[in-house]
């Protein structure tokens, strides 16, 4: 290689280096997974704050959320005493797995963008207050996995429980995001 060629090649390499250093916009997509976890079961466990032996459990089950079969409502009711306060724990399970997968722990780990909302039927003398909070800063928001149910006079009605998935849109309201679970329980206050 003669000296003139060396200079030419050197110039070429320097030019290539400039283009190697130039900017290229990079974009990547993480696509959907077909095997997302299911929520087949929602449980309410209510403990009377003035009587620890008064523990009531309600369970809503639908093992295949994708078919048209009606959910199993045989245990989807809660008997509460009038004029009482209950500490309530809400649990979400995937009972298609063996052993049963507890989705509640995942929701708890992702509490900063999950919210549980309660729709109390108009005839029902029940007040629901969420008692747990997430770690959002500067203002933590309520989560709803732990709640206080306060009853007054005897009544019967529907309680709708919805799990809201609010990725980067959680603001304390039920409206933003999507609904991961929407179930109904019958509440009897005696």
């Amino acid at each position, binding site marked *: 290689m003669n000296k003139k060629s*060396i200079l030419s090649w050197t110039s070429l390499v320097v030019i290539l280096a*400039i283009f190697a250093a130039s900017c290229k*916009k990079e974009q990547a*997509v993480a*696509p959907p997974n077909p095997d997302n976890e299911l929520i087949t079961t929602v449980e309410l466990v209510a403990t009377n704050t003035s009587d620890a032996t008064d523990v009531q459990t309600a369970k809503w089950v639908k093992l295949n959320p994708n078919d048209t079969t009606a959910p199993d409502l045989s245990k989807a009711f809660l008997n509460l005493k009038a004029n009482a306060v209950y500490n309530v724990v809400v649990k979400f399970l995937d009972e298609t797995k063996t052993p049963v997968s507890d989705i509640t722990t995942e929701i708890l780990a*992702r509490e900063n963008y999950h919210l549980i909302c309660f729709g109390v039927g108009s005839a029902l003398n029940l007040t629901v207050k969420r008692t747990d909070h997430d770690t959002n800063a500067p203002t933590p928001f309520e989560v709803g996995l732990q709640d206080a149910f306060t009853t007054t006079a005897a009544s019967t009605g529907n309680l709708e429980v919805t799990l809201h998935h609010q990725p980067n849109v959680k603001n304390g309201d039920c409206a933003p995001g999507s609904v991961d679970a929407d179930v109904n329980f019958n509440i009897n206050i005696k």
Partner: protein
Amino acid sequence: MKRKFNRICAVLVMCCTFIINSTYAQQEMVHPDSKLYIGISGGLSVPMGNFARTDYADSKSGFAKMGGNIGITGTCFLTKHFGITALVSYQGYGFKSAQNLANGYKEDFAVDSATATIQGSNYTIDALVGPYYSCTLRRNLFLDVRALAGITSAHLAGNTIYLEDQTAATFGQKESAATALAVQFGAAIRYNLCKHWGVSLGLDYFSSKPDFSIENTNRKNEAGRIINSYHQPMQGINTNLGLVYRF
């Protein structure tokens, strides 16, 4: 600005090539005793350490990938072997593994899909000065060693993350810049082709530790990777091939 800088450098190199070609025939004699050199060099920049890591879960990860560098050097010899050299250079590293960001945010926000779009790139613009040593290996062939220190204007890439579930949400990390001290050590083999022109082949280690303050936009919830500052060494190895003009 970077593209403009690249174009200017490309034009400079092409001008040099033209001058070389047009004047080469009259410059066959070798004069190793020149006191002043200028050079333009370019090559690959390979990032190292945390700056080159792509671990989504590690806030030290800089996601820098191999890029290129271009520099203009001026060297003044004070004695036969020793001199002072100054370097103005640009080192572009780009961004590696946007896919890791997309996968990480998708998992952390439990959404159907996530898209990560990188804004800008990782790069530094450096102005360095320091001592220079040169010794003759054989006729027209020299070993040059340099140790440089100075200032760098560093830039960190930003990103926009688009979460898609049944609803959508977008947030991002803005591009950020910081100024810091920098050092560079290296050696090169230089060959004098003729009276004024030579070529060099070198290897340099570059290090700086800018303290970036990072602004995040539209982060409503404390979840997923969130970086408010980045104070890790931006370091790497530069390989470069250069043209040298001796006065």
